[in-house]
């Protein structure tokens, strides 16, 4: 990106003092799931779990870029819907179109992220409102484009990423493509956030924009890039969800809040400055594990909502207390 480097102090601050508690919570939940349903230790059990959680994990890993930079991206759910509906329109069950359609979708993702970023940085509209407006608009665009319902099928080659499993492998027996995609994109997002100057600049902006500005961080450019990363991850999640489950009109509903929840469970600080990609992915897996566990327990939807609400509040309350103790 640029060759700006930040003061040493910022770099030291970013080192976490101890292991993020989300990993323990995730481990405990997985143990609970195994106790409930021993079949979970079979490859098909945990691989299916990872396959289903992959879109949310990737989405949340992108969302955390915007959160760390001090904003929100509420438009990601509508990007997912737009990707599924738009791809079905463009593909029309033609496998040869797969690659250019995917390219077009990522192009749309860049466009959406760019507009979000420009509106926030130059029109100074708070990201909550800017991306809320984008969410409403994109849902409308998806419907206008399709006339209310998708008009084509998703070709199998497009659905490969979300649906296909490699089978007859040694040891793990099956390996869903979605899990490979999660590993690759998860690592790429981790690398970009925690091993590059861009990641340092995103943290710096969220932590203290004024100081970052004085340190020569190109604030607007970095924030726009954060929004673009988030939108691109939403496109990836959309391609995987469309692949997993096929065409429908309301695929993306609710994913924006789930992604933010996952980031928060992973210890990301709303309004910026702190957040980690691996912990966010763990947060997404935790959220999925909670749903899976409640499912196995046979609890009805309302109870799941209540538990989700309680966990959300508890996670943040605990994080706040921890920060007070460690002085951060």
């Amino acid at each position, binding site marked *: 990106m640029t060759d700006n480097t930040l003061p040493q102090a910022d770099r030291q601050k970013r080192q976490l003092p101890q292991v993020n508690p989300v990993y323990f919570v995730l481990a405990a939940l997985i143990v609970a799931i195994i106790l409930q349903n021993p079949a979970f230790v079979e490859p098909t059990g945990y691989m299916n779990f990872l396959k289903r959680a992959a879109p949310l994990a990737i989405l949340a890993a992108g969302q955390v870029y915007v959160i760390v930079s*001090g*904003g*929100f991206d509420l438009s990601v759910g509508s990007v997912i819907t737009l990707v599924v509906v738009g791809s079905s329109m463009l593909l029309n069950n033609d496998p040869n179109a797969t690659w250019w359609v995917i390219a077009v979708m990522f192009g749309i993702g860049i466009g959406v992220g760019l507009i979000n970023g420009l*509106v*926030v*940085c*130059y*029109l*100074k*509209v*708070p*990201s*909550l*409102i*800017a991306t*809320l*407006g*984008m*969410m*409403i*608009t*994109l*849902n*409308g*665009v998806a*419907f*206008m484009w399709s006339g*209310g319902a998708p008009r084509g099928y998703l070709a199998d080659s497009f659905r490969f990423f979300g649906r296909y499993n490699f089978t007859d492998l040694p040891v793990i027996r099956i390996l869903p493509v979605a899990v490979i995609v999660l590993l690759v994109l998860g690592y790429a997002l981790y690398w970009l956030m925690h091993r590059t100057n861009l990641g340092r600049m995103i943290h710096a902006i969220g932590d*203290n*924009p*004024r100081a970052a500005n004085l340190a020569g961080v190109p*604030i607007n450019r970095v924030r726009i890039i954060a929004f673009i990363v988030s939108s691109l991850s939403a496109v990836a999640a959309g391609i995987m969800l469309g692949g997993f489950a096929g065409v429908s009109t309301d695929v993306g509903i609710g994913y924006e*809040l789930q992604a933010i*929840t996952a980031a*928060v469970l992973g210890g990301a600080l*709303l*309004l*910026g400055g702190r957040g980690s990609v691996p912990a966010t992915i763990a947060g997404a897996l935790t959220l999925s594990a909670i749903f899976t566990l409640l499912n196995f327990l046979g609890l*009805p*939807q*309302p*109870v*799941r*909502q*209540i*538990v*989700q*609400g*309680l966990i*959300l*509040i508890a996670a*943040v*309350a605990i994080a*706040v207390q921890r920060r007070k103790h460690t002085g951060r």
Partner: protein
Amino acid sequence: MSDIANPPRFTFRFERWAPALLLGFALLAYVGIAVGTGQTQYLTFDNLISILGRSIALGITAVGQTFAILVSSIDLSVASLISATAVLASVVMNGNPAMIAPAVGAVLALGLVVGLINGVLIARLEINPLIATLGMSLIIQGCLSAFVSNFVGQVPVEFQVFAYGTMGSVPFSLVFLLALAAAAWFVLRFMRFGSDIYSVGGNKDAARVAGIKTSRVIIGAHVVCSLCASIAGLYLASRLRSGAPWIGSDGVYDLESIAVVVIGGTVLAGGRGGIWGTMAGVMIFSLIDSIFNLAGVDAFAKQVLRGIIIVAAVAFYTVRSKRLAA
């Protein structure tokens, strides 16, 4: 965030008049489209009243949301609270006029409790308001859907006066909304609680140094917000004759109330704005709806336009700001 430490003092007259200006645009657009499409029969006093009466529930909710946003907080739980209170009112009344008073009492008590919890989570436990009220919203909705899955109970005819009664040609509910807004304006303008809200919303640390009990102010603002949402729930129960667990979320009162507050010029970061701007925002929303109906815009194009209008209206205020948007 440290950059809020010294909010630049805006003395622009622009800020005060911007909501009126936006409302003027909306009115002009409405008249223009009515004349342009030859539907001048819609340009009557009665129809104006009917437009204003479109968004009573949104208006009542937005009055409360203004308090939350002014104090630099936000409330995402209003939609579920509206559903919960509408159901509660309808179940307690159950068609019996004698139960109106207990039902109203129960509803306001529920609003009070939810507001207190929201306020304590945010002010004392220092949980981000977005997360605290989102969590609260999930909990309320979950508890509600556990018990009811459809319209339950019934509101007696006497209580339907709230939504359907008129004073001359003006609906009672519209008068109520204006009175509520006037009361809110009075509190914000002339009472200690009101000025504290602006101080805390503008700069919490400075307010604390100045001896204001910031936690109490934040909790107070959330109580007002939840009470208003409860009243909106009562209104909807009266209008729909019953309560169902989805009416709040179907009306998207959480996001719409936030949108009208910021369109009315109240700053999301808190400390600046006011009730009359919010009322202008509500009227703008009603006008937009009516314009779409008049022009026959299809449902999907409506969404696209609405999203763009929200952002554009907010940008109208913020574009001149020197600060970084959150």
